[in-house]
């Protein structure tokens, strides 16, 4: 912000800042791995009165992933977003978005969560409209309306919850909600939260803003949206339904049904699209279904699967949208039909993009495979045959779509299309810009490979998170009885 008109300076600050943020979040993660949940009381007001920040293992993991994707996208956008957009404050807003995400993952206060959500959506509005093309503005109107509506519903839910309990601290709510006699009213509030977070997460009947808007902004912006924005919704769902509204079979049934329909509708939606980025947009929806499915089953194995899937999905989806941006740079089009011949022109690049594409499907050693085992196992144990069927069906359909994209983009002969004269093709870019575009894809692909081949570590991590989530007493103790923990 201090270098408003000096883009080169902004690029350097942005990338350097992201590297620092990765370093800090690695440190936070390591600290929490050793010492357990940490809390910070803002202004030293004791919980449950003040606003509190809580970092348990789930939060720390997500903050780490945010930092990793943030670094990748910062580097990618400094090469792929045109200078005219960067001049209108792209990088400051981008870092505001990351700030909002980190805040949302770390806060322990439900109204503070609302405030972070608003920071996230206001910066995402700016990012999505930056440039002001026709498609962008139209997409933004839809994105804007449904997200504001979701926020208002979230606010309504907070109001009702405050009326019921007189508390805003999530740990305090967890204790007080469990003690309420009138379960009908609690269920109603829970449903309001489900609608609000379901819209943010793009679950089945509430996802229509996503395919209408995600393919319109520059691909660097879509990458950070795809990787993290919907996942904040999933995080909020996981947090609220494992901490505050626990043990209500009716709610978990609704979540399961939502998951099944999300898996089906996302998969079928992706099948008929031709625009590469629309295909990926629908795949986001489809794969949100897996995470919600785990939450709907609500056993320890299933939650572990959800967490593993969340970790894998943030990395892969960010990467996929960067790949789609790269393709657009190479071929000058987003249409799968008009692409082709990538393997002939760029064989090494094709191998590189094979990693995120096939990780997404989950071909065994790659990262998408492992969480599905947990989910299926939990599904069989709970005898939820519809859910198991939907998970298998969605995997199959993802495989089919990815095979179609792979064949269309990489193997097919290059169709004859006229060369756009005023378009800067990838081949004409400087070496620095090429590196800046490819390095983040390599980086995230390596992370994906690590998640795939080091699945044991990630599985340990997600089981630990699942244990923490299922036994929420530990979280409540860390927040409310801080006295013993102060060193």
């Amino acid at each position, binding site marked *: 912000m201090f270098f408003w008109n000096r883009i080169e300076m902004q690029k350097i600050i942005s990338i350097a800042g992201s590297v620092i943020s990765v370093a800090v979040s690695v440190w936070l993660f390591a600290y929490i791995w050793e010492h357990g949940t940490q809390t910070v009381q803002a202004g030293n007001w004791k919980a449950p009165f003040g606003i509190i920040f809580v970092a348990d293992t789930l939060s720390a993991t997500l903050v780490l992933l945010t930092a990793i994707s943030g670094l990748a996208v910062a580097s990618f956008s400094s090469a792929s977003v045109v200078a005219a957009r960067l001049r209108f404050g792209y990088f400051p807003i981008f870092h505001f978005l990351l700030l909002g995400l980190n805040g949302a993952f770390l806060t322990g206060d439900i109204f503070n969560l609302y*405030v972070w959500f608003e920071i996230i959506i*206001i910066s995402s509005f700016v990012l999505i*409209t930056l440039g002001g093309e026709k498609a962008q*503005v*139209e997409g933004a*109107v839809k994105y804007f309306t449904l997200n504001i*509506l979701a926020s*208002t519903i979230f606010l309504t839910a907070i109001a009702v919850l405050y009326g019921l309990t007189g508390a805003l601290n999530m740990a305090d709510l967890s204790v007080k909600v469990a003690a309420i006699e009138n379960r009908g009213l609690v269920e109603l509030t829970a449903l309001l939260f489900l609608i609000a977070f379901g819209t943010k997460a793009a679950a089945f009947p509430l996802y229509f803003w996503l395919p209408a808007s995600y*393919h319109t902004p520059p691909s660097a912006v879509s990458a950070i949206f795809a990787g993290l924005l919907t996942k904040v919704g999933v995080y909020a769902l996981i947090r609220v339904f494992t901490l505050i509204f626990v043990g209500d079979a009716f709610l978990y049934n609704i979540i399961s049904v939502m998951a099944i329909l999300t898996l089906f509708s996302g998969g079928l939606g992706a099948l008929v699209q031709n625009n590469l980025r629309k295909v990926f947009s629908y795949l986001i929806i489809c794969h949100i279904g897996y995470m919600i499915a785990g939450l709907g089953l609500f056993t320890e194995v299933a939650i572990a699967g959800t967490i593993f899937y969340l970790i894998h999905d943030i990395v892969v989806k960010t990467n996929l949208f960067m790949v789609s941006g790269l393709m657009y740079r190479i071929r000058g089009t987003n*249409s799968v039909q008009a692409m082709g011949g990538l393997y002939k022109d760029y064989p090494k690049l094709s191998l590189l993009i094979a990693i995120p594409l096939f990780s997404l499907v989950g071909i065994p050693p790659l990262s998408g495979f492992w969480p599905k085992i947990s989910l299926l196992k939990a599904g069989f144990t709970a005898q939820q045959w519809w859910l198991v069927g939907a998970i298998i069906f969605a995997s199959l359909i993802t495989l089919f779509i990815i095979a179609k994209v792979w064949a269309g983009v990489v193997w097919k002969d290059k169709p004859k299309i006229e060369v756009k004269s005023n378009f800067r093709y990838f081949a004409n870019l400087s070496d620095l810009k090429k590196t800046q575009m490819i390095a983040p894809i390599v980086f995230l692909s390596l992370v994906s490979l690590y998640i795939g081949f080091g699945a044991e570590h990630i599985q340990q991590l997600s089981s630990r998170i699942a244990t923490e989530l299922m036994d929420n007493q530990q979280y409540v103790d860390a927040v409310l009885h801080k006295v013993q923990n102060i060193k």
Partner: protein
Amino acid sequence: MEVILAIMIGVLYAAGIYMILRRSLVKLILGIIILGNGANLLIFLLGRIVKGHPPIIPGSAEVFHDLYADPVPQALILTAIVISFGLQSFAIILIKRAYKVVKTDDLDEMNAIDQDS
């Protein structure tokens, strides 16, 4: 007082949702604003309305003995108003921009993004 407020909140929610369901962009924004106001009043109402008892502990006591007006909902509403003010001003600029670019006020005609590119 509570009853009047409750009815008013209901009316505001209904009017807001009705406006959002219209096809005009301007009405869409008006609907969002009205709905937001409804939500703010709801927080106010559910925070229990108490008249004439400010939340100040008298010097002679340690804790409250009397009933008192809860300051938390008011703080929440203040935050929510500021946030929604920012969002609404952004929304108004956005619809102005949308009107200029798309040259229509009708949401049904905003379908360029649904076509294959």
